[in-house]
């Protein structure tokens, strides 16, 4: 039997995804200004569908039963940068009751619609316009909000399949 794989090792070493895209939490150290980054601190089950080509990672979220989807949205937000680096993703919403199942599904789909709508704010069109300005050396024309949007766009769309469009 092969030993179980580690989440960070799989993404960072096997898929060569920069650690900055992984969901992380920063903990302050005992020594001032020293900190430690911990990845996947929520410890939600995650497995690999090795048969798919390329292999698909199956993520999950376990509802703690707080009668709200806030924690689910926070989790999606934390994982979104990583999702953007993967060509396909599977996601399981695990809950003891199915009360929020449909709402969770809508939240998940809505979240991606919002972030992947090319014409929406912070969408692909905006990103290409801002990137073009940057490439032409017109950075001074960009506002602070534009720079933030460009940075976020980079995290979302900085993949060869998209940049080669």
């Amino acid at each position, binding site marked *: 039997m092969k030993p179980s*794989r580690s989440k960070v090792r799989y993404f960072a070493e096997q898929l060569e995804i920069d650690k900055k895209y992984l969901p992380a939490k920063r903990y302050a150290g005992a020594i001032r200004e020293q900190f430690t980054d911990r990845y996947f*601190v929520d410890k939600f089950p995650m497995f690999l569908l090795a048969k798919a080509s390329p292999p698909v990672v199956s993520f999950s979220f376990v509802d703690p039963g707080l009668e709200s989807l806030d924690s689910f949205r926070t989790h999606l937000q934390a994982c979104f940068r990583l999702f953007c680096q993967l060509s396909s993703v599977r996601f399981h919403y695990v809950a003891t009751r199915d009360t929020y199942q449909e709402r969770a599904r809508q939240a998940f789909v809505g979240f991606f619609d919002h972030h992947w709508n090319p014409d929406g704010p912070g969408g692909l069109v905006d990103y290409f316009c801002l990137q073009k300005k940057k490439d032409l050396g017109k950075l001074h024309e960009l506002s602070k909000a534009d720079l933030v949007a460009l940075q976020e766009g980079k995290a979302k769309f900085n993949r060869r399949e998209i940049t080669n469009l």
Partner: protein
Amino acid sequence: MSRLDKPTDFSALLEKYADSPPIPRSGWNTDRERSNSEPSRHDMIRERLSNRFRRTYHDRTRTYDLRESEIFTLGELGKFRVISADDLSRFAYDGNKERLEQDIQHLKKQALVSQREIEARNSPKFRVFSLTRDGKRFLRQQNRVRKSQALYDGFVKPKELAHDAKLYRLYQKVASEIERNGGTVRRVVLDYELAQRAGTHREDFRPVNIPRMYSIALGSFGYTEDEARFLCLMATHSGYFTCQQFVRFIHSKPGKRSLTFVRKLLEKGHASARPCLRNGQVYHLFSRNLYEAIGKDNVRFRRKHSLEYIRSRLAALDFILGKLDYTFFETEQE
């Protein structure tokens, strides 16, 4: 005989054979090109039914009084898991319903067979029978079926009972065709067996990765192989568990094994119990020694947690137990 075939093909097959009119009694042997010395199926049934005397069989602490037709019925139920009363009467009792009832009552009295009433779509309720665990043990201990033949006990998947019950009818039709062509049915392979085999051969479906060295290390604390494997899985992904989850992992029923396991954990001081809901208990594995033995002495599962956290860990373990065939990733230690 398998649901692994294309569903449409299989449905067509069932439609074609299972719902065909009953095969005439004399029809079993009409076209068969078999030697005259070999008794026909019909003759075999008659011979079996003519023997009305019961013999006593001893099985560990129990004694059973059974006649040949009852043992034959047990074997058929074991091979197919579920058979309807009508089919059993038609194929194993030559339409002798009275005799079937006698045998079934006697088998039920001895707790070798269980009965259930089911309702299929667009058809009235009908009775189905299944072997009990004792019945299966009896067949195995008395060597009444080939060793290579898989036996099944108990009703599973209630939604598929009606479908499963049809298989026996389909089998009779196919078996008679095989015999007519000079062949013999050596054993019956149901989809349960095929799925199990397929599951072990597909690359995706590797059993959950629990390194052998870890189960050996946990075994040195006095745990059995199954207990050690469960502890390893639980310590890696949850830290909390319930008896039901252990029972689910070992594919058993609540009883002595699960009680012994939790008693062992509590007596050795490796886990603590926390009351949950009415009579439920949630167990928390906190022993540093156990976590150390599997190289996870720095996970936070050992600490005390809030109820929400415990609930989500239990749900996560449930999720993992439902997908044991996949390779789950581990989280880095803290």
